[in-house]
């Protein structure tokens, strides 16, 4: 075994007889294929079909909300709100999500009943995450700087021009359950 490793080390260390150009081309093409494949793989885990593999009841719930059906036909899918768009943050979240594979194997939310029982836990964790990153995933589309208060309802203006403008509150502090059914809201601030 050690012998084999040693031989591999020698092969890796000694210069190859292939031309520099050949090695560069191979490395370059290999890089493209690897990076493309990696990205495609990661994109595949961002699709609705993938999410609904475990979170099926939730995917059903979004249909009556404004993030699914609305006047202009723009819609958000799971990953738009639940996966950061920024590359480094995305990788961090994806690595964290590997923990969810264990839950999948254990069948933590494998039935609708189990899911309902765990909904409050899941929701609270997600609210906490969004509070910590200042509702970054909301702001990827809904940017405060470009809000036109003259186009908003008066209830929206009174909240957005004060608490949101001062940074005292972030989107998710008020906008809970905008794409899902809510868990039991007893004891949640503002409810």
């Amino acid at each position: 075994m050690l012998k084999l490793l040693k031989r591999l080390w020698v092969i890796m260390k000694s210069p190859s007889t292939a031309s520099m150009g050949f090695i560069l081309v191979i490395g370059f093409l290999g890089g493209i294929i690897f990076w493309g494949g990696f990205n495609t793989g990661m994109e595949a885990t961002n699709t609705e079909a993938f999410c609904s593999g475990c979170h099926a009841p939730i995917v059903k719930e979004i249909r009556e909300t404004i993030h699914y059906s609305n006047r202009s036909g723009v819609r958000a899918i799971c990953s738009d709100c639940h996966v950061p768009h920024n590359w480094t943050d995305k990788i961090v979240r994806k690595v964290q999500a590997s923990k969810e594979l264990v839950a999948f194997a254990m069948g933590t939310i494998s039935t609708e009943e189990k899911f309902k029982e765990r909904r409050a836990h899941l929701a609270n964790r997600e609210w906490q995450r969004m509070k910590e990153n200042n509702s970054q995933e909301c702001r990827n589309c809904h940017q405060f700087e470009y809000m036109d208060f003259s186009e908003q309802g008066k209830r929206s203006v009174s909240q957005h021009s004060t608490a949101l403008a001062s940074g005292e509150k972030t989107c998710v502090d008020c906008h809970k359950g905008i794409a899902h059914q809510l868990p039991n809201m007893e004891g949640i601030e503002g409810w």
Partner: protein
Amino acid sequence: MKKLLTVIITTGMMIFTVSPVWSEDSDLFSNAGGIESLRGQVEVSTVNSAEILKREPKDQQLIDRNYVQQPPLIPHTIRGYQVNLNANKCLSCHSFKNAGDMGATKISVTHFITREGTTLSDVSPRRYFCLQCHVTQADAKPLVENTFTPVDSLR
């Protein structure tokens, strides 16, 4: 003999095809006793074209009551507001706890009274589902003329 038979059959056919001289509409109208429904004078099997969908205005002035016991109307849109076992979106503004901060109308204490007459410290279960009584208004014309006048105290 053959000729006579042809004559009888053709006259018979002519009477049969010409006979419905009255139009279908007038028949329906007379059958209905001269009353026209909101649907118009059409056969039951006829599908009317649908009305254009009405929109709820986003924000309205408070809507006055028309009679004293009327549950106040909701003057804003409530799309996606969840009122169920887990959450009550209405109460997140209109409850005693939140109304002050949100600048909303408080629900009245009558909502705390159970059907046995006991006053609870919070909303009574029978008054929990706001939309059973309080409703939004669409921007629509009345279908029929209405001459209702509120009582003096509301005028």
